[in-house]
């Protein structure tokens, strides 16, 4: 558990950075995640997995939005690897969306 907590969510393989977020993506966790999240910007392709995220709030969403916008601004390919119901609900509330890879399982 402890190991999982301090383990970096960022994996870089070749041209692709994968952020595997887990647990809460909220105001309580954004500070710790920030550096890794922005490190991903070094790669041409950025994939974010929210599969293991339980709770997401507007502050957590904001971090994703900043990452997505910055990625777009500097010409990176950003996408969520899969849609996440809670994140989707929040995005819909704000009238926003984030690119999602055409998921293998279900429709985005």
């Amino acid at each position: 558990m402890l190991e999982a907590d301090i383990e970096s969510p960022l994996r870089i393989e070749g041209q692709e950075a994968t952020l595997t977020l887990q647990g809460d993506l909220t105001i309580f966790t954004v500070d710790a995640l920030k550096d890794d999240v922005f490190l991903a910007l070094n790669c041409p392709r950025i994939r974010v997995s929210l599969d293991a995220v339980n709770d997401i709030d507007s502050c957590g969403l904001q971090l994703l939005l900043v990452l997505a916008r910055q990625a777009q601004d500097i010409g990176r390919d950003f996408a969520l690897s899969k849609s996440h119901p809670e994140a989707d609900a929040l995005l819909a509330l704000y009238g926003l969306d984030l690119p999602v890879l055409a998921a293998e399982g279900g429709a985005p």
Partner: protein
Amino acid sequence: MNNESALALFFEEAFEQSNLLESLLLSLDMQPEGNAEDLSAMFRSAHTIKGSAGLFALDGLIAFTHVMENVLDRMRNGELAIDKPLVGLLLACNDHLRHMLAHYRSEPAAPFPEDAEHRRLLTALEAHTQFAPTAVASAAPCPVAPENTESGNWHLFLRYHPDLFQHGFDPASFLRYLGKHGSIVHIHTHLEMPDRLQDFDPTTCRLSNELALRSQASAAEIAAAFEFIQDDSEIDILPPASDYDAFAALAARYGGSPETHLARWREAGYLPSAAPTAPPVQSPTPPVEVAIVQNVPQEKRRSADRIEGSRFIRIEAAKLDALINRVGELVISTASSRMRAKQTADSDMIQAVEVLSQLVEGIRDDALNLRMVPISEIFNRFPRMVHDVSARLGKEIELDLVGADTEIDKSMIEKLTDPLMHIVRNAIDHGIEDAASRLAQGKPARGLLRLKAYHDTGAIVVDISDDGRGMNKAAILAKAQERGLLPEGRQLSDQEIYKLIFLPGFSTAEQVSDISGRGVGMDVVRRNIDALRGEIEILSTAGQGSTLRIRLPLTLAIIDGFHVEVGGSSLVLPLDMMAECMDMPSQQISRETRQIWLRDTWIPYVSLRELFSLPPCDGPEYVVVAQFGQTTAGIIVDRLIGDIQAVIKPLGSLFRSLRGVSGSTIMGNGRLALILDIPQLIQLALKREDRLVEQRQASLTEHSIALANSTTRTI
């Protein structure tokens, strides 16, 4: 006026506005609650600079002041919490503004190089403007009529406070709550991207929302959603059927270009179909918020314009000097006409000339008054300096400015600023202790520094007082001894000891800081004050603080004088230092100690005949009692002639070192008269008195030794 001089005028005005802004910011720093008038004045300063910069197309300046103005506007409207960091930011921006002004003054055509500092300040400012418009909707008594909900949508503009997340709120919860009152038919979420990701604090809220809500709810019900965040965040609610002007007013208060906002709202279908140019559609119940938005600033602006329009006319200093010179000549020739009229013994003529000379006197006063400016011109520089210096030294100091409206000759302002700066810096550095040792002595942790200006018997007095440790006599004496500055074998009075600090190369600071203590300066202070014909007095109580008192003549150009004669020569005494004239008493005078008994006290006197080494007078003599500060002294003259207006002409360099004489003047009869320097004369009298006392003591001692010797011998 050609463009160049208009530009020069603009820069002068802009720097003035910037100075005003600074002083207001500093007073805000002391009292963060601020007052509405000052906040408006601050806004106006930035607004004025921006407006004038627009005339000269100084684009960089316009852009920068525009952002400053937005922040100041929000402060004025109570939308921004005023705290030290914000005031500090605005002070830094004001400094930067001066850099920009200086740049454009030297190269009006060259664009300002937007350096890192420029960008940093803009970013910081924009952080305070991104949610620009006024929070008009309040949850409690809502002014909007609830009936007007049938047609169209409510439009909500929600700009959240950056600390919203940290305060435990989530905008999503407000949006969900709104969903209970109706349906959000359109929402636009704006994310304000951070400038640098490194500096991005992910817990600050950078989101804002604009939305259209279809709802039957009342304004109060809608506003209630934001009850807990309305104080910090900016919540604007436009009721259904708000007219185009309402949106336009809102857009105008948003940062950036209003057209962009209006275009976005038009695209989102928020705007009513009425053409923008069409006269505003009168809605059945005009929304009250909109009325507030439109009217208040206009009203403020109107009254501001009125005040500013009638305040000042700018005159070139040289023109003023020419006028004063001419008035000086006028005074002299009027005196001459007056004398000649008296010689004709033509009473009509005499009367006519009397009227004329009264008028000339009036003109003289008016002309001199033109040069008088409030000493606040100097004082205003101090809050910033004290703020900076005390911050650097880690001391907390309250600056109290008293009598800032006291008027002082403009030409003195420039010469007085440096000495005052130096004295104040010294007081902060050496005078006021750090908080810990102050507390240990039972003093409040915050030191007090007071600058006080007032008029006193024809002089302007500036006191610089602190409640610090006071001057250490022993340390001063020791240092003077070490530096070989002490006069041999003389007992010094307190005043004389304190004045040792004005000797060149004197410094008692144990540590040389970058602020003071290098032993240069206090002698320069003295020299500057001397050049203004001023005097410095030091009052100090160990442990309780010191006061440096600078006494300056009221004006440098024309004085009301009193004409006397000594040995056939004309002399002029400044009238405002004269207390009375009387016959030289035959009794009640001690020629030995040179003192006269005046009513109930002995006062020292100085005989001008003696001073100028003239033979003793054979006729009657008169005493002019002069007063200078706390000191009273008599001046013995041969004849009293009467009052006279004296235009001061400086003495040639040959006579500059002459003590007791401050200048010369030309009298009505064309003859020259010396103007006596009463303070110096009194000093002279006092010094001689001291010397006499010493000599007599010495001779008395010698005498008694001799007496003792002779007695021994006799025995």
